[in-house]
């Protein structure tokens, strides 16, 4: 019974959100859209870190590239999501293919460093050149449309992002239970055995890296369509660090963990930087957020998802 509940919980949440959509205040709706976009971003990294065991510290590069591609390609006329979306996802995937092909030749801490280095390179390309308006970034004059659907509308934004999150979650859930997903898990647990067993490990890792990059590009597209502006900070290393914190906070190895982490992280950040809640400390939210995360990780080594296991006498979540 409990098992079944867990199975249907994400779907139930999505349906509930879809029903609540029209009743939400603009602020709430906007906040939820932001969290859902970050959830997609976090899920894309979960494929790498939680499922395949590849810790990347440069994942924000693909998020930023997806966002920049959207804004740059839409120009002053705007454009249809029918080609902007594939373009953003494709650009992120293509970059992930190049970065992955090179960085996956290394392992462990070297892999972390190489992904970080590539992401910083991408950051400086946008920061120091005129390609994307330099350090100020660029505005999107007209938001993407798709037929009668216009991302300018709050409701369209909400449902497009919700559908994207559901799709991403579903895709990753499908991958997880497949032979491909089992192979990724095998690589995480024992790469040497996988190779000796006949799996072309490098190809599997590269495939995971490209899919993760493409999904981060999807999140980037949605972010650009929501904000109507992009700047180089999207690609910066602290953004890569934040998304890594989200999935660790939520609990590695679970798709729900990535979403939970994105929610918790955004809420924490929001609360700790609001004067009404923490008074003058709000100006130092980085400090309090840091402390809060240290406390969380110390008390819940398995993440928020592990909290459920602690509370229920049955054990495993």
């Amino acid at each position, binding site marked *: 019974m409990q098992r079944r509940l867990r199975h249907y919980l994400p779907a139930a949440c999505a349906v509930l959100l879809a029903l609540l959509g029209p009743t939400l205040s603009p602020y709430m709706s906007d906040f939820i859209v932001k969290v859902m976009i970050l959830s997609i971003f976090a899920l894309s990294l979960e494929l790498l870190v939680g499922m395949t065991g590849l810790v990347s510290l440069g994942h924000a590069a693909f998020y930023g590239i997806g966002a920049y591609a959207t804004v740059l390609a839409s120009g002053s006329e705007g454009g249809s999501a029918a080609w902007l979306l594939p373009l953003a996802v494709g650009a992120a995937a293509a970059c992930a293919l190049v970065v992955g092909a090179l960085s996956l030749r290394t392992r462990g801490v070297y892999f972390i460093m190489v992904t970080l280095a590539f992401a910083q390179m991408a950051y400086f390309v946008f920061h120091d050149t005129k390609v994307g308006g330099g350090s100020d970034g660029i505005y999107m004059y007209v938001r993407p449309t798709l037929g009668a659907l216009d991302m300018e509308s709050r409701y369209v934004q909400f449902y497009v992002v919700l559908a994207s999150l559901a799709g991403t979650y579903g895709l990753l859930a499908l991958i997880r239970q497949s032979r*491909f997903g*089992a192979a990724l898990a095998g690589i995480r647990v024992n790469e040497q055995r996988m190779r000796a067993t*006949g799996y*072309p490990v490098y190809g599997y890792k590269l495939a995971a890296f490209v899919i993760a990059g493409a999904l981060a590009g999807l999140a980037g597209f949605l972010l650009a369509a929501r904000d109507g502006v992009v700047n180089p900070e999207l690609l910066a290393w602290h953004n890569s660090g934040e998304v890594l914190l989200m999935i660790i906070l939520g609990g590695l190895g679970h798709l729900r963990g990535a979403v939970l982490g994105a929610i918790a992280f955004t809420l924490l950040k929001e609360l700790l930087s609001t004067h009404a809640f923490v008074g003058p400390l709000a100006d130092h939210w980085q400090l309090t957020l840091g402390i809060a995360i240290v406390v969380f990780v110390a008390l819940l080594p398995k993440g928020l998802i592990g909290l459920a296991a602690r509370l229920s006498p049955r054990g495993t979540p």
Partner: protein
Amino acid sequence: MSALMSVEGLTRRFGGLVAVSGVDIDLHQGEVHAVIGTNGAGKSTLINMLSGEIAASAGRIRLDGHDITRIAQSRRARMGVGRSYQRTTIFPEFTVRENCRLSAQAAMPRPWAIWQASARCEDSNAVALEVLEAAGLDQDAARIAGTMSHGAKRQLEIAICLATRPRVLLLDEPLAGMGAEETERMLDLLARLKQRHAILLVEHDMDAVFRIADRITVMVNGAVIATGDPASIRTNQEVRIAYLGEGH
């Protein structure tokens, strides 16, 4: 009878050190070919070259007549070269059945078919069951592999190898750290396996080697000093001096 795997002049240099030097070995189906030698004789390096883990500096490896010297490890494994490691190399987090199923799925077509559930793949489940029975682990199918005894883990590693349907088995000290009873079980298993496989066995347990091997190759300092059946190796003067110790 032509050899299933044949090795000619296989050499590996690590900088100035020649770890394996001009080794010739033939592996036949139905035979356990043991490689013995002191620590540092180059036995593990030899296995690593045969499985494709490290590249050969010189020489040739043939599988069924095909030159596989330059072929990557994962492809060699799919061509039928299975191996075990000196240090147990399994998937400790997964169940015993999952360990074998994952291995059985390595060579399956269309790995990108993500709509097909790994756990419900009938072919690989059937293979997993079959190899677990062969290895005597079918009772433990649902156990988490990491919680089993050392001996059972070693057996599981062999079962994982078998699930890929190998023709050649390269076993690096499968008896290491095993008790007497576990050793007996493993030797029984190897005796059954050799009917359908060509087995290369690196092992330090001399009693076991002389009991089960059909052919023995003795290595010293990376080179082969003798190859022959157990009786001739036992009486070989050079081997006695170099390895078994003159006093025996």
